[in-house]
């Protein structure tokens, strides 16, 4: 009977997703300028999207603006690197989990990769990066890009103009092109769909980070629905506020309009990815409650090499995550690469030294955790700070996250794999420190003025960062808590597995499969 219910829920989800996709596709084909061969000739690829860069040739065909092949090649690689981070999280979390729950950890990761990818196509990208035309778009995108309708795989975003005078001309090969068909805006050198794909990998990894808090005890079926609801009501709005032109980016938080800083600086997702995932994890841990026997029986990582391998893969993938967030291959992506590497290294060293001094031996699980803490903390700052700023952020990452994990253990909050301590507190620290260490020596536009400069602009940026971080934390906690409480009430038997299933382990109880078979 119980199995039938779970089966029905899964089927319902699948049918819903497929129907929405089919409707979106029908919608895409019904528009007058539509895609897929409705227009004869080379302009058959024309999407009719006014936010994309198209120009008319002499015969009246609409053709896509020039892209930069270097940028496009780099972004294809960066997108793939970020996608690799999702299974890397599975390896990292899998090593930290107990051997009876490893299959469940890998399973949750893989299924979320599937769900979030499809959800991004159906409506996620549209809600996050859809065009902002109405006042309500300060809080949520539109439905114009549902089913990737009007998302071109040829044309970049932005308005058409001369190539020698684009927003990024100083960095671009396009600057040497004598033509008038270049996008004037950012990100205007890669196809629109590639931008959507890159952002999609972020929408995939963020809910995956949360599962570290719910391992060992959340029903697999509940995870599926939670991810869909959480992405819709937490990730997409927050990403829209900060990256999609919402109220954190449109000057609403501008404390003093006479000074340059006007929006929250979050280069690669300190608030969007790490604060949302980390604080959602804390809410999830509190709603689900402690694992059976916490504090009485040891719940130690079952496979340290897997942890270290996972951390290493994440470090590698982060070179797509942070430098790729520039969406160009230029000086900023080089600077972001260096900042990422320095902070990851310094986070690792700091954590090992702290554990050595505090509890007597250099912990290697701690080293892997310090790596992730450093990477998570540098994420919002990576394109804004110099290498020495990154060094200080790396030390802060190790110290703050170490303290947060120790505090969590003392409080007996069962955020099982320390998502809050590492990602939540790391993202919060990084988002605030971005306002401190952002350096006007990084961008040739003079953007990014941190408090360390001692200027009024720096103080304003610091203030905006703190306000933005606090809003994100509060919103994430409140909404995630509500989602899970409601789910727990309406779900047959609650969203937590039975004590018997918990004792057997979710691998056998939920999946009927074991990670390690010795027969």
């Amino acid at each position: 009977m119980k199995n039938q219910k779970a089966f029905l829920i899964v089927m319902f989800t699948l049918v819903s997703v497929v129907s929405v996709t089919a409707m979106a596709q029908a919608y895409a084909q019904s528009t007058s300028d539509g895609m897929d061969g409705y227009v004869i000739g080379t302009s058959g690829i024309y999407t009719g999207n006014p936010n994309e860069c198209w120009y008319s040739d002499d015969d009246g065909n609409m053709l896509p603006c020039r892209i930069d092949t270097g940028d496009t090649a780099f972004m294809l690689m960066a997108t793939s690197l970020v996608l690799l981070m999702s299974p890397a999280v599975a390896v990292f979390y899998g090593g930290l989990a107990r051997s009876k729950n490893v299959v469940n950890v890998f399973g949750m990761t893989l299924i979320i990769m599937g769900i979030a990818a499809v959800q991004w196509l159906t409506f996620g990208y549209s809600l996050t990066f859809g065009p902002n035309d109405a006042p309500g778009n300060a809080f949520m995108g539109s439905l114009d890009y549902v089913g990737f309708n009007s998302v071109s795989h040829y044309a970049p975003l932005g308005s058409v103009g001369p190539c020698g005078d684009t927003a990024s001309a100083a960095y671009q090969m396009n600057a040497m092109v004598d033509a008038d068909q270049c996008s004037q805006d950012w990100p205007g050198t890669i196809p629109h769909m590639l931008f959507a794909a890159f952002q999609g990998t972020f929408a995939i990894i963020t809910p995956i980070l949360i599962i570290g808090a719910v391992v060992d005890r959340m029903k697999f079926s509940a995870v599926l629905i939670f991810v869909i609801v959480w992405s819709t009501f937490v990730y997409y709005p927050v990403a829209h506020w900060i990256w999609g032109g919402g109220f954190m980016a449109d000057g609403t938080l501008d404390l003093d309009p006479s000074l340059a800083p006007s929006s929250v600086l979050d280069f690669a997702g300190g608030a969007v990815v790490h604060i949302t995932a980390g604080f959602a994890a804390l809410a999830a841990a509190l709603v689900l409650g402690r694992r059976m026997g916490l504090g009485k029986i040891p719940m130690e990582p079952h496979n340290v090499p897997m942890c270290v391998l996972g951390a290493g893969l994440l470090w590698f993938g982060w070179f797509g995550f942070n430098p790729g967030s520039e969406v160009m291959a230029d000086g900023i992506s080089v600077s972001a690469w260096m900042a990422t590497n320095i902070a990851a290294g310094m986070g690792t060293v700091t954590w090992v030294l702290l554990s050595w001094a505090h509890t007597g031996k250099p912990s290697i699980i701690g080293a892997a955790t310090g790596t992730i803490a450093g990477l998570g903390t540098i994420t919002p700052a990576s394109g804004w700070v110099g290498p020495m700023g990154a060094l200080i952020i790396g030390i802060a990452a190790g110290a703050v996250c170490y303290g947060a994990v120790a505090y969590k253990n003392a409080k007996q909050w069962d955020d099982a794999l320390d998502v809050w301590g590492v990602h939540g507190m790391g993202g919060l620290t990084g988002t605030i420190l971005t306002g401190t260490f952002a350096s006007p020596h990084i961008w040739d536009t003079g953007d990014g003025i941190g408090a360390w400069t001692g200027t009024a602009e720096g103080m304003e940026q610091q203030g905006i960062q703190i306000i933005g971080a606090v809003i994100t934390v509060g919103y994430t906690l409140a909404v995630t808590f509500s989602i899970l409480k409601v789910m727990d009430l309406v779900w047959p038997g609650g969203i937590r597995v039975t004590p018997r299933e918990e004792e057997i382990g979710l691998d056998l109880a939920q999946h009927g499969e074991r990670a390690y078979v010795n027969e």
Partner: protein
Amino acid sequence: MKRLETIVKSDRLSDVVHAIRSAGAKGVTVTSIKGQGSGERPMLRSGRGTTQFRAEYNNMESVMAIVDDSEVDKIVSAINQSCYTGKSGDGLVIITDVVQVVNIASKKTNSEAL
């Protein structure tokens, strides 16, 4: 016939098996076991290196040998020599009487069965 059950720390296994066999036992049966006793259990890391806790069990090996009564003293003294450090946790030798041993292949019993 006596049954000798020798419980030693895991890292002493090779030494103690060598000692028992050299002293005349015809064979041994080894079982990996966990236990709590007078031996100190190690401290392990926890909470990403932020805390530590005492291991729930020590990892031990149980070496079982069936021997003639006349060989018991010789074998026990060999075990003592191979494992003695003087600290608690070196292990135990438990000696019990055996009623009968039957070799399944040869159908022989007791000493001839070994």
